[in-house]
Structure formats: structure tokens, C-alpha cells
């Protein structure tokens, strides 16, 4: 888990091996030509298949009609704007992510506390991750979104659909992210803890100043991976009735008999994940620069 994604994900190998005598990083003139031709051919074949497909005209009309793309983007009097609804996805995502980062860290740390006194806490942490990694998100959404209001509790049963959605996302994703954190914590060599403790730092100080900073740095790529998943899964909150981008697109499609709205929603989801991915790349690159490219003493 921790090693995944640490490589420079953006550098694609050229389709043909570079000619001998050249560094693999630098593309010589010949290699550029070959990779260019191969790329053009590849996309030409894909384009030909799409364009020549028997239903291609219908699909173009249903999914890529410029008028419907624009209209679903902005919304009409009777149909919600997809981009407006997408703000709800962003809202759900931002709140959930912040809560997940905290809750998951607490779970991961609790799971690692040694000593018999903490046995019940460790058990709870393990049971939690087992449970919420095991249940499909959509079921957790139904159970929280319809079950908690049914309990008739004073405050907790009268929250908004969006809030129940956020709670469900936080519960499920925290279980995953806690495991990511835990892998990171375990990847920090025990000698680091020994060095910290030998200087008189307490167990907690060692965790806070020495172990966690290193652990979190190492798990940024897999964390990002989970958060891209989270961004997309915000669409599932619509099963509780909230009108977010995917639901707004569905409403538009159902009343206008045109699915351009789905394409708009899809593009919005892609657009928001790209800055996150680049940001993470930059964090990793900065870290590499600081520490010299993987130099080992």
C-alpha cells in the first residue's frame, strides 16, 4: 500500500523501447517520432471505431449536443443546474475529508497503543475497521440515512439528508484511511522510536514529532487515491434525496431525453480530481528535493 504511487506517475514510457545508447529519460529525435506516430495511430483507430459505429450519430446527439451541454450546465427553470448541484458534492467532499483525516488518524493511533489497559480500545478500533470496510457504502447510507431518523432521538434524528450522507461517508472512508495511516506508521522503523524515546520524549511525543510526520508523508499517495474515490462517492449521497451533480444530471436527462447532462457531471468530477493529483505530485517532488533523491547514507 505504501509503496504504490510513489513513482513519477506522469511519465509514460514511449511505446517503443528507446534506441540503445540513449538515456531512458531523454527521448531522442527518433524516439519522439516513433512515439508521436504511435500515439496518433492509436487515437485514430479509437476515433474511427467510435465514428463508424452504427449508432454513433445517435450517441453524438444524446450525449454531446452542444445546446444540451450548455443548458444542463446552467440549468433551466424546471431542471437544476448540474454545476450548481456539483457545489453540493464539493461541500460534502470537503467536510467529509476533513473529518476522515482526523477520525482515521485517531483510529490508527488507538490501534497501535500497546499495553493491556488499552486492550478494549484496540478491540474497538479493529472491530470498527472490519465492520465499515465490509459493508458496501450504499448500505451504510441507507442504514444511517433512514435508520437514525427512525430512532426518534432528540437531536440526531433530525439532521439533514446531506448530514447523514456525510456521516456515512466518514464512517466508511475512515475505516479505509485508518488502515492507510496504520501502514504508514508501521513503515517507520522502530529505531526512530527508540531514538526519540532515548532522548526522553514520551511515547506520545515520539508519535507526534517523529513517527507520524514520517508516516503521513509516506502515505500521501495512497491517501490521495482514497480521496479521489471519496470525491466520486459523494454522488451516492443522492440515494438519501440530496440533489447533487449526478442526481441533477439524471433529472435533466429524464425530462429532456438528453444525456449531455451526464457528460457535464462526469467532466466536473474529472476536473476537480486533477488539481488534487497535481498538488500531491508537487508535495512528493518537494519532499524528494529536500532529502536528496533517495540518497542513502
Amino acid at each position, binding site marked *: 500500500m505504501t509503496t504504490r504511487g510513489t513513482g513519477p506517475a506522469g511519465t509514460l514510457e514511449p511505446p517503443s523501447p528507446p534506441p540503445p545508447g540513449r538515456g531512458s529519460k531523454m527521448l531522442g529525435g527518433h524516439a519522439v517520432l516513433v512515439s508521436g506516430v504511435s500515439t496518433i495511430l492509436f487515437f485514430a483507430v479509437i476515433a474511427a471505431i467510435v465514428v463508424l459505429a452504427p449508432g454513433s450519430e445517435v450517441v453524438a446527439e444524446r450525449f454531446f449536443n452542444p445546446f444540451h451541454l450548455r443548458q444542463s450546465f446552467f440549468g433551466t427553470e424546471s431542471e437544476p443546474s448540474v454545476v450548481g448541484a456539483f457545489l453540493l458534492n464539493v461541500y460534502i467532499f470537503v467536510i467529509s475529508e476533513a473529518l476522515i483525516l482526523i477520525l482515521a488518524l485517531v483510529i490508527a493511533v488507538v490501534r497501535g497503543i500497546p499495553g493491556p489497559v488499552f486492550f478494549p480500545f484496540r478491540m474497538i478500533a479493529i472491530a470498527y475497521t472490519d465492520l465499515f470496510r465490509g459493508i458496501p457504502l450504499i448500505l451504510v447510507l441507507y442504514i444511517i440515512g433512514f435508520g437514525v431518523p427512525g430512532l426518534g432521538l432528540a437531536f440526531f434524528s433530525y439532521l439533514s439528508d446531506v448530514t447523514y450522507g456525510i456521516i456515512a461517508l466518514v464512517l466508511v472512508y475512515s475505516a479505509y484511511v485508518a488502515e492507510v495511516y496504520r501502514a504508514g506508521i508501521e513503515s517507520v522503523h522502530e*529505531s*526512530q522510536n*527508540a*531514538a*526519540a*524515546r*532515548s*532522548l*526522553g*520524549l*514520551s511515547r506520545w*511525543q515520539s508519535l507526534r*514529532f*517523529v513517527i507520524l*510526520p*514520517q508516516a503521513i*508523508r509516506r502515505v500521501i499517495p495512497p491517501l490521495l487515491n482514497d480521496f479521489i474515490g471519496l470525491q466520486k462517492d459523494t454522488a451516492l449521497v443522492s440515494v438519501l434525496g440530496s440533489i447533487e451533480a449526478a442526481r441533477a444530471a439524471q433529472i435533466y436527462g429524464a425530462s429532456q431525453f438528453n444525456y449531455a447532462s451526464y457528460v457535464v457531471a462526469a467532466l466536473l468530477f474529472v476536473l476537480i480530481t486533477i488539481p488534487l493529483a497535481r498538488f500531491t505530485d508537487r508535495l512528493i517532488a518537494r519532499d524528494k528535493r*529536500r*532529502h*536528496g533523491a533517495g*540518497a*542513502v*547514507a
Partner: protein
Amino acid sequence: MNSGEASALFLEGVHKSFGENEVLKGIDLVVEPHEVVCLIGASGSGKSTLLKCVNLTEPVDSGRIVVEGEEITAEGVNVNRVRRKIGIVFQAFNLFPHMAVLQNITLAPHEVLKMDRKAAERRALELLERFGLLDKRDEYPDRLSGGQQQRVAIVRALAMRPSVMLLDEVTSALDPELVAEVLSVIRGLADEGMTMLIATHEMGFARDIASRVCFLEAGRILEQGPPERIFTSPENPRTRQFLQRIIAAGRL
């Protein structure tokens, strides 16, 4: 009998096992203030484990360890407070890779001794200057040579003003040409009167620096005495055998 009140370090009947494997079989050792005691012996003789027990990294099974009159192996001792008095330097340096040199050094004084950041930095910079590392203050450990890293690790331990320093084969992970710079730092500490307990494979260094040398084998101190005697006329046949092997290997 000496109960360790006046000694810097006092060990009595220290036993330690890892499962079935008894690594320390009753160690008695006294280190007086300003003494430099070198532990020699083959790998697996218990040198490192002994240092770990003194540092409370490993709990002892039985026996007593007293540091400056305080029994650190007693029930309910605050290990964090004990460790402040004992500096340890590891074979593998164990610097914190996510912190620059200066932060490596100031972390414990600031967080443990509660020194304010400015004062902790001032002390760190003094020490760095003394060991010729001032220009490395903002470097990250990965950018330093092994010798520089180990010197930073020594500075990091010294910044806590320990009363005893434990050195655990601090040159074993270094390239031969980097050993000298680290040894000269340790020699400097010895000249200043720092009390040290040193596990080492560098026999020439031990002969040079030690006020006393202890030969360990299979978890026992078989022989101890001033280096002139141990290295020239060892009494115990096992010590003799060990040193002959060392000489044969050209390490003395």
C-alpha cells in the same frame, strides 16, 4: 559493598533474556564519574543489550541499575526522566530524516526539558560549531555523510546535557575513512571529562581512550582492567584468545 550512591553508573547482577536466549548472565559493573569504560567482545556477547538495559530500552529481568544514586530499575520509575540523564548514540545514527539538523538537535531540549526555542537553538549552534558542523545546520540528514550524521547524532545526545553517554558501536556503520572524524569527537568528549560507556570493535581506539576495558563473552564480564594490561597481558584465556583473533585480523 558499594551501593552505587557515588558512582555515575552502577550495575549489579543484571540478567536479561530474549525468550530462551539468556543474553546477560549477571553483569556487575561500576562506572565512576569521568571514567571512560569500553566494552569489547565478539558480536552477540551482550554489549549492545547491556547498553539498551542501561537506557531502559530493554527492561532487565533481574538485578539493579543505579544512575547517579537513583535506582532506575525500581518499580514506578519515570523512564522519560531517567533517559534525560543518559545520552545514547546508535550504530545506525537514527537521526530524524524529516527534520533538518538543527531541529533534530533542538527537539528534545525544547519538548522534554521545556527550554524555549531560542535557548535550545543557541545551545545547538554552540555544539554544532564546536564539532565543525555549523554549516550543516539546515541540511537534512540524508544529505550528510555517515560521519557527519553520526557527529550530529552525538550533538543531539549532548544537547540534553546527559551525565552519562552510551555509545553503541558508533563507527561500525561508517566507511573506514569516516571513522576517524567520529572517534576524534569522542576523544574530545573524554578529554572534557564526559562519563562514557562505549561498546566498540575499534580496539586501537579502546586502548587509546578507555580508562578501563571490560571483556564480555556470552553475557558475562570475564575480565576488566586498564587498557595497558588488558591489551598486553590479559589474564583470562578467553580474553587472550579473542585478542589474538583480533590481532590476526589486523584490527589492533
